């Protein structure tokens, strides 16, 4: 019996092989076929060469991350075989170019998987060009899994249609068909249950389909089409872009930096359609200061960067706090120190973001855990920033920002835009008094006027200042303003949602985490459950203000606690210690630049529970 619709696919080769696009097409194809998908890639800080690979996870049930184990590997070079063949599940297989690699069972070192040589390059050339090698491999994948080739052709039309023209579309469709036919002809002669079909069949409408026969000989996995579910397929960064646009962000300034660059690209691509100004600046210092300027003028403004760029923004970050100018900063983590591992993932910036810039001031730090969080938390970030007139950081990382998932379409209509204490023109003009931009109020928030409004004139200053904004150094003024700023955080903390618990209320083990490990953790929980280990998981989404009460409660109630995060010193535990005076001794930490996978989390926790 084949495993149906529970499939992990990897394509691996060198940078410049066009792996990313290929994989995303396959994933989208599966999504349109009613399945759930997740796609993530690993690539080096190079434009060509180095080792690149992309995972597509496909499942009938909701799926949240890539997996360590694979059903099918498309290996574009020997290096890829060496690195990944061991991850194949029994019944899995390798598609590779038999003209270029001569693979034997002993090369792979195992007999429980199948080798599927396909002349990828030759077929691509036959279809019209080497560049379509990956499309041939996609077609082969469709053929081998018995999935719907015409659905894949739709994707090819979607992808190459508008911009590239019909000839390109047709060549790609041909390439896919060559791949599909080749694999069916050579490796799909007999199914597990009954003899299989051969090639694709031309339909009367000029389209074609697989002949209904069975997928690959001895291949243990099969993909079947299901009812479409209207999901959307996008990355964390794309969800942030969608969230920012929804939230009415009209000004976005940034300097490119992996893994935040695609936010810049996404915003720029939508600049015209949504009436925004998007500026690629001279550096990150300019980016944050421009965002502050735009917000000073009354516009919702954002910037996005990674750790190195955030370091350059640290001074401006404090300026936003001091002038009480709302801004949203996306901090997309990658490993350091310094340039570090530019294209990899990690969660080593938490403490830096929590403490960046001179002296103490309130900030809100939100760490979405998945694509859907990325959308809604970005919207919330803008609301919080404006309501409390302070900087809000949305912390992500490479794995979250650059991984793609199929998710329910965001119900975005009617989401509330809470703009806080803007003073209407009328009120300002008529109040007769001197306007006080930094009026001391009970909730810490002062009514806000913006340039152009009559009667609201004031100077915002990076110095300590009085209620009108004038530079002051008197003890009392300083204390009053310091307190006022912190009072905003107290007020905000009343509306900031508590961390959410996933899984059963009573569990053998309670996982604490923040940010991108969410997906792998949710998958690991399924694996643990299969082994009869009940796990639940507290997702700490808002890290400042830190939800000490809920976290402490959870830890105290838990039978056993484990922290999962991507850094060496366990920054989350340092926060738990600091804020809750509790120590979580069990931890699963990863800091080699790679994201967690469900299997490793599962194994680690299982060993803990056993040990």
């Amino acid at each position, binding site marked *: 019996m084949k495993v149906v619709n529970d499939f992990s696919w990897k394509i691996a080769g060198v940078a410049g092989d066009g792996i990313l696009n290929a994989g995303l097409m396959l994933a989208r194809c599966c999504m349109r076929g009613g399945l759930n998908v997740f796609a993530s890639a690993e690539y080096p800080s190079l434009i060509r060469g180095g080792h690149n690979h992309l995972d597509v996870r496909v499942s009938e049930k909701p799926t949240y991350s890539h997996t360590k184990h694979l059903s099918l590997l498309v290996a574009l070079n020997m290096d890829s075989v060496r690195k990944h063949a061991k991850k194949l599940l029994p019944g899995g297989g390798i598609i590779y170019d038999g003209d270029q690699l001569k693979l034997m069972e002993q090369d792979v070192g195992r007999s429980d998987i199948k080798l599927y040589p396909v002349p990828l390059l030759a077929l691509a050339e036959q279809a019209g060009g080497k560049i379509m090698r990956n499309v041939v491999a996609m077609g082969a994948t469709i053929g081998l899994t018995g999935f719907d080739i015409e659905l894949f052709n739709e994707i090819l039309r979607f992808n190459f249609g508008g911009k590239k023209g019909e000839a390109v579309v047709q060549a790609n469709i041909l390439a896919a068909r060559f791949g599909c036919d080749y694999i069916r002809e050579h490796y799909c002669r007999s199914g597990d249950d009954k003899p299989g079909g051969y090639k694709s069949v031309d339909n009367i409408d000029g389209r074609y389909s697989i002949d209904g026969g069975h997928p690959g000989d001895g291949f243990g996995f099969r993909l079947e089409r299901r009812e479409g579910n209207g999901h959307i397929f996008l990355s964390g960064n794309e969800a942030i872009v969608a969230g920012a646009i929804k939230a009415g962000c009209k000004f976005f300034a940034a300097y490119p930096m992996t893994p935040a660059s695609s936010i810049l690209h996404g915003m720029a691509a939508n600049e015209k359609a949504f009436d925004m100004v998007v500026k690629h600046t*001279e550096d990150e210092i300019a980016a944050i200061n421009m965002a502050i300027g735009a917000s*000073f003028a009354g516009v919702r403004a954002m910037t996005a960067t990674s750790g190195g760029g955030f370091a350059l923004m640290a001074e401006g970050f404090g300026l936003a706090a001091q*002038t009480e100018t709302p801004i949203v900063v996306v901090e997309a983590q990658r490993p350091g120190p310094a340039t570090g591992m530019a294209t990899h993932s990690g969660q080593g910036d938490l403490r830096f973001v929590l403490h960046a810039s001179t002296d103490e001031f309130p900030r809100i730090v939100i760490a979405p855990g998945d694509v859907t969080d990325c959308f809604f938390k970005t919207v919330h970030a803008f609301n919080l920033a404006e309501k409390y007139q302070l900087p809000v950081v949305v912390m992500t990382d490479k794995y979250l920002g650059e991984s793609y998932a199929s998710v329910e379409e965001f119900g975005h209509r009617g989401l509330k835009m809470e703009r806080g204490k803007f003073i209407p023109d009328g009120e300002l003009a008529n109040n007769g008094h001197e306007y006080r931009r930094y009026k001391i109020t009970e909730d810490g928030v002062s009514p806000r006027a913006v*340039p*152009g409004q009559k009667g609201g004139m004031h100077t915002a200053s990076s110095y300590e200042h009085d209620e009108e904004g004038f530079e002051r150094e008197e003890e009392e003024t300083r204390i009053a303003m310091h307190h006022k700023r912190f009072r905003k955080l107290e007020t905000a903390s009343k509306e900031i949602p508590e961390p959410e618990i996933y899984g059963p209320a009573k569990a053998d083990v309670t996982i604490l985490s923040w940010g991108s490990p969410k997906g792998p953790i949710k998958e690991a929980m399924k694996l643990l459950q299969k082994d009869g280990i009940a796990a639940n998981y507290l997702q700490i989404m808002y890290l400042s203000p830190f939800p000490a009460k809920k976290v402490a409660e959870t830890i105290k109630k838990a039978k056993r606690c484990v922290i999962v995060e991507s850094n060496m010193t366990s920054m989350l535990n340092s926060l738990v210690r600091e804020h809750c005076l509790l120590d979580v001794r069990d931890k699963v930490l990863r800091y080699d630049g790679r994201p967690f996978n469900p299997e490793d989390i599962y194994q680690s926790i299982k060993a803990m529970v056993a040990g």
Partner: protein
Amino acid sequence: MDGKEFKVPMNGNGSNGNGVEVSHGLKVLQDRKKTTMAGLTPKELPTWCGGCGDFNILFTIKNTLVELDIDPASTAIFSGIGCGSKTPHFIKTYGFEGLHGRSLPVATGTLLANHHLNVIVVTGDGDGYGIGGNHLIHTMRRNFNMTHIIQNNEVYGLTKGQYSPTSPAGFRSPSTPQGAIDTPVNPISLAITMGATYVARGYAYEVKHLQKLLADGIRHKGYALIDVFQPCSTYNKINTIAWYKEHLYKLEDSGHDPADKMLALSKAMGDGDKLPIGLFYRENRPTYEDSMPQLNGVPLVKKDISDIDITPMLQRFK
């Protein structure tokens, strides 16, 4: 002057910049009293040293706003950190005293968010040509419609007298006790080279001349740099009022043509003993704002954001 008020419907709370653009780079509001010196003067008094050139620059900026009858509520003045950067506090318009060296990006953000505002930037030489140099060169080539006034006292005033990027060679200061050995920045040739479209130099003690440069600079549609020689009575004992009296001459008096770029450059780099003040160079080039289709209609700040429909963009993820 009593007039019609333009109201552009806006998203609930907060609205602004009922400005319409007239004559080149200058924007005015129509429903308001005439701008007066008294109206521009807040209750806080400047705290500069006696004899500081910043007083005159402040006074001249205010005079210019009166002369041009610019609406204070539609004007925003940006500065960095330094003695002169305290200026926004002493003019009753909107103001933003940001970080040392970072006024230009803040001003840029504001301008792009509401391009109906009059945007003026006032910074020191350390702030503008030193730490802020990268923003300066890139802002100049973008040609935003803003007026940038540099209080060039050729020294770091607020931090007590260190040399600045424009300090003359050999300048002795606490950070250069043996005398500066860096070749000073030439702001005028730098600005011309980097694409500034209005490049002038004034002197704090030639207020009428300065006022003309400021007025023309504000009227100019594009980025205007006005470098102003500003005696620092406390820390610059070289470039004193007496020194300037001997060393300055007016470009106008030498029959200069501000449309001639190479001539402007050679005047700027002239190695004679005398330094010219006046308008070096002027050019018309589309502004950055004018090149952005999304700014042709209402300013960003007036866009309704209450329930933006992102369905079309989400379609692309299907």
